[in-house]
């Protein structure tokens, strides 16, 4: 359904774009609020995202994954670009407006939609040592750089870097057929 809406959006069907927005905006906004931590920034970023989706709907192809995943990637990259640009100006120990981290892994109930049960990725993540898993998930969900991760996890920078590196390597091995 989302694929059809994206296709129609590419053909400049304004009703389809509206429906697409209504079906997906809360997902993108949830991500942006979590990563950017300031509602006004998230609101601006959401506008940027849908402007981009409107302009780029024709570049979506099914091999790029589920339409919502494609749109979430646009939102995540927009948030990362904004965070990186902002953190050049903002001291990284500024914790104002940063909510406490909620449970980093989706709980089993939250993933009840899958018929096949646990996906391969979650399985592979679960196999990682806890500090590697936590570093990867914090980076993914919160948009932290290595120094920010080190601060957040109260561990030396080199240690955190190697958690990330080893975690990614093990994930890659686990995900390879």
């Amino acid at each position: 359904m989302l694929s059809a809406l994206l296709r129609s959006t590419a053909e400049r069907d304004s009703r389809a774009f509206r429906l697409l927005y209504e079906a997906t905006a809360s997902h993108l906004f949830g991500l942006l609020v979590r990563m950017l931590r300031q509602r006004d920034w998230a609101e601006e970023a959401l506008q940027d995202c849908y402007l981009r989706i409107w302009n780029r709907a024709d570049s979506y192809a099914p091999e790029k994954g589920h339409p919502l995943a494609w749109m979430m990637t646009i939102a995540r990259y927009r948030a990362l670009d904004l965070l990186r640009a902002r953190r050049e100006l903002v001291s990284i120990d500024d914790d104002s407006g940063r909510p406490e981290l909620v449970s980093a892994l989706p709980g089993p109930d939250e993933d009840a939609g899958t018929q096949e049960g646990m996906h391969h990725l979650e399985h592979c993540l679960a196999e990682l040592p806890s500090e590697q898993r936590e570093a990867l998930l914090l980076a993914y969900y919160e948009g932290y750089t290595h120094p920010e991760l080190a601060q957040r996890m109260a561990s030396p920078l080199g240690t955190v870097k190697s958690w990330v590196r080893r975690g990614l390597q093990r994930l890659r091995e686990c995900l390879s057929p």
Partner: protein
Amino acid sequence: MSRLNGPARDYLAASYVLGTLTARARAGVQRRLRRDTDLTDRVQFWEAEFSRLHRGRATVLPPDHLWHLISEKTVNKAPPTIEPAAMLARRHRRDAANDAEATPSAATATVNPGFWRVWAVAASLLSMVLGGALIQRLVAAPDAVIIAEAPQPYLGVLAVEGGRWLVRVPVDGGFIQVRVEGAPKVDRNRSPELWWIGGDGAPRSLGLLPMDGAVQLESTDLAPSDAPVLAVSMEPRGGSKTGKPTGPVVVQFPVIRDL
């Protein structure tokens, strides 16, 4: 980067998708993705895998007024005033090796006329002050303190015989606004292409310049710099095929943030 072995390339792709890279490294990967299909494949692999992690995350309903703001810029916006130039720019972008998520693509939109009125006055004053000469930085770097609002955009005036382009580049990515004043004289077999030269010294294409009217170009991966430069080169029709300027640079301008 091309000399990296498989595991190192994979780590770079994963770090890009994960988001642990610095702004500069991110921009480097984004540039690389336009012509490195192997790296693109690796990025797409990680994007597909990690996108699973969004399942079940909290959703937040955006305020109602956001749709109105979005619709004004999309479904309800007036037709672009200079569609041909924008189409050219867009086609040029599509010629790039791939269309990875972070690679900018050109887009058209009309520009708030009030903004241009103010900007045209500022540009005229600026031209008087500069007298056409290159200048060094006019403004000090922004204070390294917490800044809640968006940073000042970069402004540039690129004058050639017959006319000039006014360019506004947001610091944190998003839409670059370009407006033509007068009728810049350009060889009919050439396309004027706009370049950004940031801290890494490498020219980065922002797209083809329109010959009249106004256009918005999208860009998110500019190399940051204290004193970036905008430049215009005359390229074969449709723009540079190499990703670098190949024709003569007809004008350059060290951009400023404010008067």
